[in-house]
């Protein structure tokens, strides 16, 4: 659970909950970007996600490396499951 999952910001939701729609391993999910409020991400930016929260902004190149690292560690399946499992503020 120490290994963060890279995701790309699709859309920032205009709400006080500071949520964003991200593409995370091919699925669209809402995550919290509250921890990045000091330097908010923009659509197209890459971030590292940990338990439904964006923890840091990274470059696209680093995101690709992180994906490859997850794959090599045999964690890609678990990451896929985690990404698909996020129910964070899913639409009612």
């Amino acid at each position: 659970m120490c290994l963060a999952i890279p995701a790309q910001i699709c859309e920032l939701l205009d709400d006080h909950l500071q949520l964003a729609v991200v593409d995370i391993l091919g699925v669209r999910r809402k995550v919290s970007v509250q921890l990045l409020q000091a330097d908010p991400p923009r659509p197209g930016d890459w971030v590292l996600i940990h338990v439904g929260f964006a923890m840091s902004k990274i470059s696209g190149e680093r995101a690709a490396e992180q994906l490859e690292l997850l794959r090599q560690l045999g964690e890609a399946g678990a990451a896929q499951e985690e990404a698909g499992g996020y129910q964070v503020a899913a639409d009612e």
Partner: protein
Amino acid sequence: MKYVDEFRDPALLRKALAEIRSLVEPGRTHRLMEVCGGHTHAIFRFGLKELLPPEIELIHGPGCPVCVLPMGRIDDGLELANDPECIFTAFGDMMRVPGSQGSPLESKARGADVRIVYSPLDALRIAQQNPERRVVFFAIGFETTAPSTALTLLRARELGVMNFSVFSNHVTVIPAIRAILDSPDMRLDGFIGPGHVSTVIGCRPYEFIARDYRCPIVVSGFEPADILQSIVMILRQLRAGESKVENQYGRVVPWAGNLPALKALAEVFEVRPHFEWRGLGFISQSALRIRESFAAWDAEKVMPIRGVCVADPKAAQCGEVLKGVLKPHECKLFGVECTPERPIGALMVSSEGACAAHFKYGQTRLPIVTT
């Protein structure tokens, strides 16, 4: 066989390995601890030990959240789960971790409403969807994960979700490192510092390690090249007779950490006077409990929790392995009675646990060609 060429950037690896070889003092064992379970996993998976010269010994540290959780806390949590009014939620990593009365998964099989969540926000959502039930989130993790729990509690308060509570088992990395440094049977030459914990706490909290214990620490990324580069940086310090905090993972880790995360932690949590760590015993000020102002969402305040202490199975030597005194395969139960399918100790459960990593990757040791 393991060839350096299999890696993404073999030239970088070869260069780092050559520098490591040139920096080690022949005949002297350099004992380096990787604190984080993610590093342990990567070291085993990529066979880095076998690429390194024999003078480098890697000791696996306590940075795997499920591995350091004492059985008593699991028993306490599962007692809550047995209440039919309760929905017990936890990360998937927790599901097979054994307490003295079995794991969360076994409780589920016996009829308890145990659900895997991938984010604490998902547990809050389950509470909103089930207003007639009590939803408990069994929170584990170091400073990487604790801010997420804190922000979820802030949101629960904001939304007035009163049937939600958190059973906090969050621990903090610095007291564990200090306990290891103070342990009389431990001699370390340097630390490979945790990567993602440091995105939250930054690098400054490690300064006492360099200053008071004269021990180098390098915060490291998770790629094989990152880990080798961090070892180079530690060895350079040792060679120069220095001890300082360095940040190899600067592309992700800011020196000052993540201020919104630290602020949320401070608002919701306070330091516990002491907390039990599996294998390491009670460590003072090593864990986070929920502040009085959030007592209405603190499972330890709103639910009956006995606070049991349970001794680890006698034959298992998890404590010695956690402290790096024993290698995983030197435990009497390793691979025989204790396997990833039927774990007795928590180190065998998570892929970040030294025993599970050793079991998975350590047994198929093949001849190595490094250059």
